[in-house]
């Protein structure tokens, strides 16, 4: 295995260096085929981080060759650089493995190896829409865990399917929630608590898989729709003053060349939010523009809501535009991100008058269940 990894690493390194020298204007379908070949080999050798970076490089290169607007040069450079750094490390992997085994393991990456959680009680407190043009649509649901060892944690469930023409992510809310009997549509989880038994869970990333295990059972507590106060009060755990934020940043992990320029710090519950101004930046730089929503909130440290102007965020941007100067929102549950020297927020849920709403969801007026079943060949 070790000789093969070195061979693949040399091939990838040489390939990336040649791609960097020649530029994208000389790239062709042959480049795509080469990346596919490297990707297969990296996966086979369980070099998961390299395989992931190659997969994203493949996506961006394909987008460039097909002249897709979704091509993002920053993302391309990020994954090109990651492939180079990883392959460079693996070229002399024997030495690295011997002298710094932890770093070697880290660079190889690990496959998600879930444990089974016998019982979870969950309440959705945020949603994020995913719309990768021509590739994937769906949602990330952010659940607050209310039971057991995971109590108080945010657990994510990804519901994503290949993009099919004419379908929006919202249509997927009409799919059957996996492992429910009698079946319930996914959208019922937005209002109600669920109890989930025998659920695969990956602690490292706090991801759950509601659909993977045939032994799983999911019960929707339809009496719980009115009872959101309990889960809202539990969001206080994510309310921070400036000192607490400072401590979080200070104990942040070491800086590596693999870090994203914008990095996720934690979830945060921001109270008494008032949107005071909106501006749009980035149009002049041939990259996806971003909306900045300036705001005041209960604490005195500066925060700004930052939402990239892309299809999946359309409704979210609309909702926050509407809120400008209108009313003070009781609370917004967000991802807290370090971006360009600022503390920025990506909203997942709005709390007002003891109700949680999801600002990126467009209300669907018709049921798409039959259509979905035929498009995705789901029984």
């Amino acid at each position: 295995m070790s000789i093969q990894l070195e061979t693949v690493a040399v091939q990838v390194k040489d390939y990336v260096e040649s791609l960097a020298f020649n530029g994208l204007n000389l790239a062709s379908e042959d480049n795509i085929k080469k990346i596919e070949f490297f990707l297969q080999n990296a996966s086979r050798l369980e070099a998961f981080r390299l395989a992931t970076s190659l997969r994203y490089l493949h996506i961006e290169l394909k987008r460039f060759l097909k002249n897709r607007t979704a091509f993002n040069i920053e993302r391309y450079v990020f994954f090109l650089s990651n492939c180079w750094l990883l392959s460079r490390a693996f070229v002399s992997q024997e030495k690295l493995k011997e002298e710094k085994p932890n770093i070697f393991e880290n660079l190889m990456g690990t496959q998600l190896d879930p444990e089974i959680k016998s019982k979870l009680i969950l309440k959705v407190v945020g949603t994020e829409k995913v719309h990768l043009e021509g590739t994937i649509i769906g949602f990330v649901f952010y659940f607050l865990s209310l039971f057991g060892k995971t109590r108080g944690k945010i657990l994510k469930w990804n519901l994503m399917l290949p993009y099919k023409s004419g379908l929006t992510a919202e249509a997927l809310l009409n799919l059957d929630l996996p492992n429910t009997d009698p079946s319930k549509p996914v959208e019922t989880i937005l209002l109600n608590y669920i109890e989930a038994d025998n659920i695969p869970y990956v602690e490292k990333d706090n991801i759950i898989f509601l659909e993977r295990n045939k032994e799983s059972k999911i019960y929707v507590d339809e009496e719980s729709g009115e009872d959101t106060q309990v889960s809202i009060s539990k969001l206080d755990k994510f309310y921070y003053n400036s000192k607490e934020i400072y401590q979080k940043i200070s104990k942040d992990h070491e800086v590596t060349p693999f870090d994203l320029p914008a990095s996720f710090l934690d979830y945060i519950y921001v109270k008494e939010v008032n949107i005071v101004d909106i501006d749009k930046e980035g149009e002049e730089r041939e990259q996806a523009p971003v909306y900045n929503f300036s705001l005041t909130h209960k604490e005195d440290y500066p925060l700004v809501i930052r939402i990239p102007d892309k299809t999946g965020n359309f409704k979210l941007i609309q909702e926050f535009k509407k809120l400008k100067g209108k009313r003070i929102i009781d609370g917004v549950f967000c991802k807290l991100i370090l971006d360009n020297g600022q503390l920025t927020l990506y909203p997942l849920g709005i709390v007002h008058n003891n109700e949680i709403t999801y600002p990126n969801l467009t209300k669907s007026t018709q049921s798409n269940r039959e259509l979905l079943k035929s498009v995705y060949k789901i029984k």
Partner: protein
Amino acid sequence: MSQDPDIMESFSILDVIKIKLNDLLIQGIENIGIRSNSELLDLKNKLGEMNFTTLSELLGSFLEKIKGLSQKPIPLNLKKEISIEVLRIIAVTRMFERIMNIESVKKTLQEVE
């Protein structure tokens, strides 16, 4: 959010480097490297003045190497060496950006307290 002008200037110079590198990676080093020589030299000097010494030195080394692009055909090892310089600059720029990101937010939070 108002930010320290020095920090803003540092972020903006890192942005300039990224834009230049993006151009190189799209159009190819051979096509753009020599043409933007004087701009890159200015950038290198500016980085030196702003104490981004590592980046300034890497850019200097890149500029030295691209002088060899006038040779035809371009030796394969030179192509490789130039690409490596570019990929190093990308990695180091990213690290600087990350450090700046953290330190800038910490400074803002300290000012609030």
